[in-house]
């Protein structure tokens, strides 16, 4: 039982950065914009959060800096992909390559430094619930933020006019424009939200998961988050499940080593990536469901008045 709780709690921790980034990307893609720059934005969030925390001594400042860095990066992307109507694939790739370079450059002087990261804060009462309490409600504050973000995104999409606007713009920007909706404004906001969440996801890595900075510390999590959104067919509740599933895959090697299995760490490190591909394969067996939920204008640049 104790082992199970520990494993599940570790799963939630490993899944949290994926959950944060994927929720942001989900909103972004629902507006019809595909931002492949997750990896770049997360890295910038991670390095900004770490450097800000190190210099200010405050984790709150660090988190704020990470979110702002993510938003700033996403606005660069939005300028190219939304305002200039550039190819979204190319612009997203550019953002990732740029983010990898810039974060390594900015963080070059901070490799090896260390900070006191977030520690766990048990929520009274809730953490007393058997099993779930220890797994979900005896965690660090950023885990709670990710849960709040999930509920907020879910309510927003389902029950608000803003969610309706977002879905309309994502389905058919031309028609949205004809209905008098501000397509570009909606898309900018959606991209910025995605950027902020990616920045936060990066901060989770450098301030909570492993409180330090190393080059490329996201190790493909941005890409996995992108796959997760597809796998979840743009539904937030499935994003949560998917994120924790990937979380489980990425800590599996620790569990196996704990059980005394002797498998090369390099081979076990492949697991999350293999699982990602398997998930995409699994999804392909039900194309109709994917088609029903895909934002129809996803990936297509739009300029009003063409």
């Amino acid at each position, binding site marked *: 039982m104790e082992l199970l709780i520990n494993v599940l709690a570790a799963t939630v921790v490993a899944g949290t950065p994926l959950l944060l980034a994927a929720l942001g990307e989900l909103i972004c893609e629902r507006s019809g914009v595909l931002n492949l720059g997750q990896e770049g934005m997360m890295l910038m969030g991670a390095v900004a959060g770490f450097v800000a925390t190190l210099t200010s001594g405050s984790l709150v400042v660090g988190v704020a800096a990470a979110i702002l860095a993510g938003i700033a990066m996403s606005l660069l992307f939005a300028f190219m992909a939304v305002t200039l109507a550039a190819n979204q694939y190319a612009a997203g790739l550019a953002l990732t390559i740029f983010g990898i370079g810039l974060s390594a450059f900015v963080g070059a002087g901070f490799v090896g430094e260390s900070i006191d990261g977030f520690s766990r804060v048990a929520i009274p009462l809730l953490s007393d619930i058997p099993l779930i309490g220890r797994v979900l409600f005896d965690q660090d504050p950023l885990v709670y933020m990710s849960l709040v973000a999930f509920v907020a995104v879910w309510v927003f999409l389902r029950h608000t006019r803003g969610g309706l606007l977002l*879905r309309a713009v994502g389905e058919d920007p031309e028609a949205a424009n004809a209905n008098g909706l501000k397509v570009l404004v909606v898309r900018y906001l959606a991209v910025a939200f995605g950027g902020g969440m990616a920045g936060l996801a990066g901060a989770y890595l450098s301030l909570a998961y492993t409180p330090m900075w190393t080059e490329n510390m996201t190790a493909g999590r941005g890409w996995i988050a992108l796959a997760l959104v597809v796998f979840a067919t743009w539904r937030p509740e499935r994003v949560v499940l998917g994120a924790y599933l990937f979380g489980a895959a990425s800590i599996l090697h620790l569990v196996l080593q704990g059980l005394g299995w002797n498998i090369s760490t390099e081979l076990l490190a492949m697991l999350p990536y293999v699982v990602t591909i398997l998930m995409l394969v699994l999804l392909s067996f039900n194309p109709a469901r994917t088609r029903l939920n895909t934002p129809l204008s996803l990936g297509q640049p739009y300029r009003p008045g063409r």
Partner: protein
Amino acid sequence: MSAALRLKLENIVKEYPGCRANDGIDLTVESGEIHALLGENGAGKSTLMKVIYGVVQPDEGRMLWNGHPVKVDSPARARAMGIGMVFQHFSLFETLTVAENIALGLPTAEARDRRELDQRIREVSERYGMALDPRRYVSTLSVGERQRVEIIRCLIQETTLLILDEPTSVLTPQEVTDLFATLRKLAKEGCSILFISHKLEEVRSLCHNATVLRQGRVSGDCRPKDVSAADIARLMVGDDTPISTRVPAAEPGDVLLEVRDLSWKSSDPFGTSLKDVSVTLNQGEIVGIAGVAGNGQDELLKALSGEIRMDRGDMDLGGLGIGALSPDQRRKLGVAIVPEERLGRGAVPGMSLAENALLTASGQGLVDRGMIRFGRVRDFSRAVIRRFDVRCNGEDSTARSLSGGNLQKYIIGREALQNPRLLVASHPTWGVDVGSAVAIHEALVKLRDEGASILLISEDLDELYQLCSRIGALCDGRLSPLAPTSELTIEQLGQWMAGEFDSAEATHAAA
């Protein structure tokens, strides 16, 4: 009918680079009047309605609304004034419900109470005889029902001038009757209607007055009930353009194409599946397929071209089963296809006419051991341009730079020069100027007289009646019986288009 002027346009001028779309247009619409705006494609109708609806600003001229000069700088402003517009291509969201779609077009305050909105939608729809459930998803609605959503969306906002752009082109004859009843009721209550069309008979039955545009100018005003359709047609196209007349029928030869029980299931939840389609084509005849867009026309064309493989059924060309062959294998056997979309399917927009010849004509000796023979490609392309009178700057012009009519002539010419045995053409004259349409019809008839079989898929019933020896209709992926044109009444065809036929009977009749 009161004589109060609802809308008055004076000397509207709108110029685009290289084209004066509106050149001093005057127009008046009284309250409660149904006013037709007639003209060919490119005559300036769409520009004028965009000016009225505030989508574009005129360079010159004045607009009076209920007697007061106004400047309409946006569609939002137009809507606030009481102008509603139903575009030909609907601005609806398939994944949202009727009520959600309507809510999106309303000010936030009015759309807040969903229950009240549902009630208002029901009231309006019942009052004007347009049954509609606000909770249904748009993706489940027929085209006619979608149009109702658009109209109700306008009416719910106290519209006093309703602009309809070619509203009947997507409807079956019965749905047209229903729509006209609604419009007449609206007009009786004082709502003005601007009815944009190129179908003369409809205009004659519905509209009080008509303004005809040609090349950006008003070429005449008339009371459609008092003049003949031919007179209006002359105003539309001018004196120097030939107007197509019925072509002499040909003697059909042996059976060329035989399709039996063709079925194909769409994997797209919004797509149309083909169900037991059977059709026989003889050499030297043109057979027409009518139907409202989205009822399986595109799927039928793709099944014949080989772009999609049928799940079940037989397809014989000259006694040879072709159902399992790929598009280029079928092309080698003499199958030519002219798809509905000229740009982006029939031709690659950014490529030159010569390169576009390679798209389907590579089998005409234009490729040798995997390498392109550019000299021959150019020769072939030049031959098409010359023989079919394609107006362009030579074979290096991009497909995008040609007008719709000229590109269509090029595409049809490209197929015709390959001496096809079977030509399947979808909406070949849609959005094409009258001159090119006549040329295209002539090219089809010439091919037919040379012995080719032609399957003509079209929404334009006039075109079908004019060219075809037999006509049927597609509805929801099923094909009606095919009847000789001379024996088929438009009412019967309308029923077929609405799906009122027995599938078994259809199979039987076609066999």
